[in-house]
């Protein structure tokens, strides 16, 4: 009797200590093969298709695209996590997705994780592009889903196929329901978030081309995946604005002016390489995902590591943009081109077009800073050393670029915006700082599977 009482008290203490929002750790259903036994080519192909469709779809500008990639990454991860030993769902770890809010597989039934993923990712792409999805692109998704299913279904029992697909569909639907309350739902319909009154002051952003409204001015209010990430990763103010030729701000603008007018051919190449490309970009987030895809394919990552990588990168990119956009609209800082034309040289032109939103901080720098922290965690040593050749832009007519360290890659991406005349140096330095802080939070504050293949 005493033992029973002791056990009961212990149970009460343990249950009392458990958090309300404890993350879900689901034992891999024993009848299902582990995620690491599956090839990941199909999942990488979905992210290639995502890039193509982002490029073709109205309203998928950098903020909106980052969110789309974010939810697709989370879906990739959640569709496979129950096939990873000790894998921990993001439900209960990220905002808007409480523990138990996502469907769970039955422990005594068999699932095929690749088929789960195939269904979940196809559905999530349809959800994310929504009513702006072009009919031709809808067919591409349908075809990819059908062809992948045909390949993956060989030798799989019909009941396993049906169960896996149903689980994938339920999962995508549950994640989509989460996404609908984050503030960015259907933002592709009004990416400029009009009506929005552009503030007027000497230091303030003004239009740099035909686009008169800046992009996504309320994006900072979207719910991030990681709680308080935007507030926690802010990096403080820029150099005080001044039009005084003796001021530090004027010097920062002169630095841009002199750089653009003295760029070497290599610096122009770097500018265009990371731009990413007029008309054809799948946004900075897409470029970073393209690099990740290459790294995964070249390293022979299985479905296990590939899903984890896309999940981590999805969270990182989505949250980097929210935090970056907070800085942009907290400060509303004028772009170098506008300042230089007003105070230094009215005929000044940049190497590439200036995007329609404020300068401080650089979006490219923030997103690549977050991105490389994920890549370092997955592929490199603590110093970021990793030898690879970025061929992700070769398909668009760019020369591949060699790197031996992920920090070098991030610095080059950030510098490209300075060479191009798009950003002040401080935008890039602070942007990298913010992005790296976001990436650190993704890697360290969320629990991801370890020792993955």
């Amino acid at each position: 009797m005493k033992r029973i009482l002791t056990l009961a008290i212990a149970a009460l203490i343990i249950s009392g200590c458990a958090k309300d929002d404890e993350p879900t750790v689901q034992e891999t259903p024993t009848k299902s093969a582990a995620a690491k036994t599956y090839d990941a080519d199909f999942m990488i192909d979905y992210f290639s298709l995502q890039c193509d469709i982002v490029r073709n779809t109205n309203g998928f500008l950098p903020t909106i695209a980052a969110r789309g990639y974010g939810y697709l990454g989370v879906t990739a991860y959640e569709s496979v996590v129950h096939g990873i030993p000790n894998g921990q769902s993001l439900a209960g770890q990220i905002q808007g997705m409480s523990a138990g809010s996502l469907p769970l597989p039955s422990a005594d039934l068999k699932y095929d994780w690749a088929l789960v993923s195939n269904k979940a990712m196809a559905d999530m792409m349809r959800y994310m592009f929504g009513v702006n999805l072009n009919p031709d692109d809808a067919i591409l998704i349908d075809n990819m889903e059908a062809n992948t299913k045909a390949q993956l279904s060989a030798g799989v029992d019909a009941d396993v196929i049906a169960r896996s697909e149903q689980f994938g569909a339920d999962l995508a639907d549950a994640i989509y329901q989460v996404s609908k309350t984050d503030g960015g739902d259907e933002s592709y319909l009004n990416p400029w978030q009009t009506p929005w009154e552009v503030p007027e002051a000497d230091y303030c952003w003004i239009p740099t081309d035909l686009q008169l409204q800046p992009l996504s001015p309320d994006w900072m209010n979207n719910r991030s995946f990681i709680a308080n990430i935007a507030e926690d990763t802010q990096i403080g103010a820029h150099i005080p604005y001044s039009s005084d030729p003796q001021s530090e701000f004027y010097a920062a603008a002169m630095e841009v002016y002199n750089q653009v007018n003295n760029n070497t051919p290599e610096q122009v190449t770097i500018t265009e390489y990371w731009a990413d490309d007029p008309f054809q970009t799948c946004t900075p987030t897409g470029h970073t995902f393209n690099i990740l895809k290459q790294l995964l394919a070249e390293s022979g990552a299985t479905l296990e590591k590939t899903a984890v990588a896309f999940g981590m990168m999805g969270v990182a990119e989505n949250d980097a943009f929210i935090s970056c956009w907070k800085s942009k609209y907290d400060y509303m800082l004028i772009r170098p081109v506008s300042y230089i034309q007003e105070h230094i040289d009215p005929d000044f032109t940049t190497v590439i077009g200036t995007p329609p939103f404020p300068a401080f901080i650089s979006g490219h720098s923030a997103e690549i800073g977050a991105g490389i922290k994920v890549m370092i965690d997955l592929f490199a040593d603590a110093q970021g050393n990793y030898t690879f050749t970025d061929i992700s832009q070769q398909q668009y007519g760019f020369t591949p670029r060699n790197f031996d360290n992920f920090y070098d890659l991030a610095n080059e991406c950030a510098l490209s915006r300075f060479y191009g005349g798009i950003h002040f140096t401080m935008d890039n330095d602070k942007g990298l700082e913010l992005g790296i802080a976001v990436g650190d939070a993704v890697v360290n504050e969320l629990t991801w599977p370890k020792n993955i293949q």
Partner: protein
Amino acid sequence: MKSLKIFLLAGILVASCTNDPVEEQDSWPVDFDALVALNCRAIELRKARFATADSLRLDMDSIKASMNQSDFEKYQNDFETRKNALLSESNALADTIRLRMKGVMSDLGPDRKRVFNDSLQATLKREGCE
């Protein structure tokens, strides 16, 4: 005599190390010439995309000043048509290049990838595609 032999041997070694680092094209697991041609066209299209974008960006003020609203809208429509034609060819070509590169790169280690890319770029440069 012995020192002469050593000198000659050293000379042969140095000469063998200073050969053109570009590997024979036949050694790569891909139709190298076809890949060069595809990349050359992709470079041409990239230049055309940047030029088209610049034509609108850099001349916007003069274009707007010299046209009434109706003409400007027509100009924009023409611009979109040119842009879409460029995009259509660029996207199709990008898919082809991506798939071929995927096949090559999956078979090579990091060092060999660099040698392959250096070889490809050297060939493109020789053929005037930069």
